[in-house]
């Protein structure tokens, strides 16, 4: 039983503590927004320090820039791609992994049925499964999935007849997981990824990644650095009042459809590999809510070659707003790409069954590990 009388006092204290936290939070947000204005024109002087401090790197735009939504083109093509993976299971009948890439090609203003695709690929050879002594799973598999996503996206972009094209991925364009992987092979993986970005760029398309409810606080770090006089050492020593405040809260004042200033990402993979290859990733915050509704602040990442081309940048901005207005806060093509890539529980079971049958047909008798076998018995619900 739960003796509620023992909790009365703690619950009261908890209420007061949370109310205090909320007040502090509101004050800090107000302070952060004031700093955006105060240091609006200090971008140039903060740039070098920002990179060293891991803060958002200012571009030429004032920090408090607000760019309203450009006119939404009557006709343009939005393409979204997303991927899922089934990890190799050492308790399964055979060692393999599966990638499933979903995509939707949506031609705005055409009245045509969008093109939906779902493309699975099964990987089972030793070359597929191992990188040196490491089994391809976890972060290593994430990189392969990201690469498959962007390659499929580049294929679709190239196949599209000319006209404005907006290619979208869910999440980020930076292969940040490489930070957690051994250094050898990093360059090769990034190069393969960036080659796909080249293909999209050469077709004249715009490319962006959409991050829903982002938790980054890089702009907050930049403002803390500015408040510390641009001195990295001092900024490191002092407590950053904006440390736990996501940037999206600082930008919640953006009117519907408007974006923030552009910033460059301080991510080390971005600085080390993307910048020299001409694909430096920049980002902005964008209010994707409809007119008159509560703000929905998303983070949009896009390569430098998009931001340097006014038309492509306007397409990223207006195209994402148009897509989000269909679904209500999230691009329609990405919602559908996710659905098309998703692998349900029963589908996983069917795949495992199909693999088992194929092994049997080839004369290989295999079985799941005893642990997996007993899990399959115990996790199917009680019969008695």
């Amino acid at each position, binding site marked *: 039983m739960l003796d509620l009388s023992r909790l009365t006092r703690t619950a009261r204290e908890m209420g007061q503590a949370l109310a205090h936290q909320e007040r502090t939070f509101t004050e800090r947000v107000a302070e952060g927004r004031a700093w955006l204005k105060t240091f609006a024109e200090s971008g140039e002087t903060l740039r070098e320090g920002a990179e060293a401090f891991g803060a958002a790197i200012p571009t030429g735009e004032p920090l408090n820039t607000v760019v309203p939504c450009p006119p939404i083109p009557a006709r343009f093509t939005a393409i979204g791609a997303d991927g899922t993976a089934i990890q190799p299971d050492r308790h399964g009948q055979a060692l393999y992994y599966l990638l499933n890439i979903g995509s*939707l090609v*949506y031609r705005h203003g*055409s*009245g045509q*049925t*969008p093109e*939906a695709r779902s493309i699975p690929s099964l990987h089972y050879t030793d070359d597929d499964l191992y990188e040196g002594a490491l089994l391809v799973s976890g972060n290593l598999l994430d990189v392969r999935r990201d690469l498959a996503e962007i390659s499929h996206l580049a294929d679709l972009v190239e196949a599209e007849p000319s006209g404005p094209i907006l290619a979208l991925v869910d999440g980020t364009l930076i292969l940040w997981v490489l930070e957690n992987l051994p250094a050898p092979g990093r360059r090769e993986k990034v190069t393969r990824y960036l080659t796909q970005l080249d293909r999209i760029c050469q077709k004249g398309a715009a490319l962006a990644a959409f991050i829903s409810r982002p938790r980054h606080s890089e702009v907050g770090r930049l403002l803390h650095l500015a408040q510390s006089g641009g001195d990295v050492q001092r900024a490191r020593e002092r407590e950053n009042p904006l440390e736990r405040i996501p940037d999206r809260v600082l930008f919640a004042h953006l009117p519907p459809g408007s974006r923030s200033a552009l910033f460059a990402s301080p991510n080390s993979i971005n600085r080390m590999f993307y910048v020299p290859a001409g694909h430096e990733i920049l980002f902005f915050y964008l209010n994707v809510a409809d007119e008159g509704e509560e703000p929905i602040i998303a983070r949009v990442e896009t390569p430098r070659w998009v931001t340097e081309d006014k038309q492509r940048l306007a397409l990223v901005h207006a195209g994402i707003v148009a897509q989000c207005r269909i*679904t209500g806060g999230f691009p329609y093509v990405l*919602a*559908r790409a996710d659905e098309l890539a998703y692998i349900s529980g029963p589908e996983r079971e069917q795949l495992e069954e199909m693999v088992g049958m194929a092994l049997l047909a080839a004369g290989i008798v295999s079985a799941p590990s005893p642990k997996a076998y007993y899990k399959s018995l115990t996790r199917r619900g009680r019969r008695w």
Partner: protein
Amino acid sequence: MVKMEDLVGGTANLRVGRVLRASARGFVVGCKVMQPDIPAFGSFVRADLQPAGISVYGLIYDVVLRDDPMARRFVIAEPPEEVIRDQRENRGMPIEVGVLAVGCRMEGRIVHCIPPQPPVTMDTLYRCTPEEIVEFTQRLDYFRLVLDAPYVPVDELLLASLRVAAAARPPQERRPFLIEAGRELTRLLGNDLLRLDGLLRRLSAMAR
């Protein structure tokens, strides 16, 4: 206005869908939304049970459209044409078609009875051709199976099937066919005059 001729499919072996679940009295078929010929209430359909060499005949008595949260969201919004098409044509929300078994063909002969075996999952369901409908409705013994069916809008289903069966015949044969159907109904529903009266009124309107 719907013409009598429009009620029957002219193409031989036009596929309706595949069997999802079945029992001796009937079965449910799944098919994609927006087929060129969306199955209609009261249509005659056929499933061939290959190894058994039996064809099961049935009447469509229900068409159910399932939804999901995403579709529901767009129903209350005013989505662009592209989204409507995507939801209808790409999202694979099947419509479920309920079929009441009313007879079968065994050794070339049509019998109005509960079939000896139901179709199995994934069997294909076809829409009957006008010739098949005429052949099936040479006798009207299937009325009893419809009248006894539970959870089915019995009177409406009978009338709809008669409308389809009449339309499958040449114009000069339609009226005599409907009069014969009226006689059969009178035999079966002699103890329920109120119901019979309602059915006959609508039949005579159809025969005009």
